[in-house]
C-alpha cells in the first residue's frame, strides 16, 4: 500500500469520485461555451436537472460551496469553470475553502515564498 494515501485536506480525484461527480463535472465542462453559461444563468435549476445533479450537488452549487462540490464529486479543473461564471478566481476559491479572507489567503501564498 502507498503510505501517502491519507493527505489531510486533500481529496484524491479517482474513479470513485469520478463516478460520483460525473453529472456535476459534465455540467461544469459545458461552461467552456459562452452560450452554455448564458443558458445556465437564465435557469440554473433547469440546467441542474438537464445534467442529472443530485440534491446535494444542486445545493452545493446554489451555495457556491466549493468544499461541498468537491465532496459531491466535483473536480477542481471543471469547478473552476463554474467559479468563472461568478468571476471567482483561484484566490477567491482558496480563501473560501480555507475559511480566510482573500487578503489573508494571498498573504499565506506570499509567506510561502519568504
Amino acid at each position, binding site marked *: 500500500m*502507498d*503510505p*501517502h*494515501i491519507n*493527505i*489531510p*485536506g*486533500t*481529496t*484524491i*480525484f*479517482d*474513479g470513485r469520485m*469520478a463516478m460520483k461527480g*460525473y453529472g456535476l*463535472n*459534465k455540467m*461544469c*465542462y459545458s*461552461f*467552456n*461555451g*459562452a452560450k452554455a*453559461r448564458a443558458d445556465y444563468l437564465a435557469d440554473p435549476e433547469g440546467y441542474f436537472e438537464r445534467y442529472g445533479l443530485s440534491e446535494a450537488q444542486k445545493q452545493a452549487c446554489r451555495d457556491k460551496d*466549493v*468544499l461541498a462540490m*468537491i465532496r459531491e464529486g466535483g*473536480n*477542481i*479543473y*471543471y*469547478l*473552476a*469553470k463554474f467559479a*468563472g*461564471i461568478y468571476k471567482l*478566481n*483561484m*484566490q477567491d*476559491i*482558496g480563501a473560501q*475553502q*480555507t475559511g480566510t479572507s482573500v487578503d489573508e*489567503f494571498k498573504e*499565506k*501564498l*506570499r509567506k*510561502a*515564498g519568504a
Partner: protein
Amino acid sequence: MARILGGITTSHIPAVGKAIEAGMEDDPYWEPFFKAYPPIRAWLAEKQPDLVINIYNDHGLGFFLDQMPTFAIGAAAQYRNEDEGWGLPELPPFKGDAPFSWHLIESMVEQEFDITSCQELAVDHGFTVPMQLFWPKGSHPPAIPISANTVQHPIPTLKRALDFGKALGKAVRSYPEDISVVILGTGGLSHQLDGARAGFINREFDEMCMEKIVTDPEALTAISRMELVEKAGSQGTEFLMWMMMRGALGKVRQLSSNYHIPISNTGAGTMLLECIDS
C-alpha cells in the same frame, strides 16, 4: 535526421496569460517571474528551432472525463483554443505539423507507448501560455501538443513519464528530415487549488526537483504518485510534464533557472536545458 536542441520548463498558470494581455511584465508582482524569459527568448532567437513539442496537461478543455487519454498526441494542421469559461482572450489557432505528428505516433506505438492520436484538439492555457511566454510576437515554429492526464487518478507514474520522454526522444531523432526541435515541459511546480489544503506550496521540494531534473532525473522516479500529491500538492502532479520533457533530452547543460513564489497559487519554475550533443 532531426535533432533536439534542448528543453524548456515553465509554469503555465492562466493568470500569466492575463498578465501578458495586460502588459504587466514589469509590474512588481510579476517582474520576478517574467525576468526569467528574455534569456530564453534570446536562446530561441539564436537557435531558430524548426519545430516545438509542447508537453502540457489539459485542464478540461480538450478532454472530458467521458474519454480521458493518459497520453495524447496532437495530429492536426492547427490547434484552436477557447476562453475556457473564464473569458480568457482567444488567440489565433496555433499551426501544427501533422506529418511530423504521425511520425511521432508511429514511433511511440512501435516503442509500445499506446497513445491517443488527436486530429482535432482544443488547446488550453497549459499549451497557450508557454507559447505566449516564449514567442510573445506569435512567430512560433509549428507546434505539436502532447497532453498527459493529471485530471483524474490513476495518473502516470514518474517513471512512466520519464520513459515516455526517452521514447519521444528516439521518435524525434528518427525523423528523416534535418530539422531542429525544442521540447517544452510545462506546468507545476507545487500548488494545490482544491480542498482545505488549498494554497499549499513547497519550496524545498520544488528546489530539489529542479536540481534533480538536471543532474539525476532517474532518482525522481522513486517518488510515488501519492507522495507527489503530498509534497507538491494536488496540481503539483503537473511535474510529470517536466519528467516527460527531460526524458527526451539525454545529456544536458543548464543554461538558466528561475524560481519564484507565488504566482497566483503556485511555485513557478523556469529552466532552460541545452542538449550537450546538439
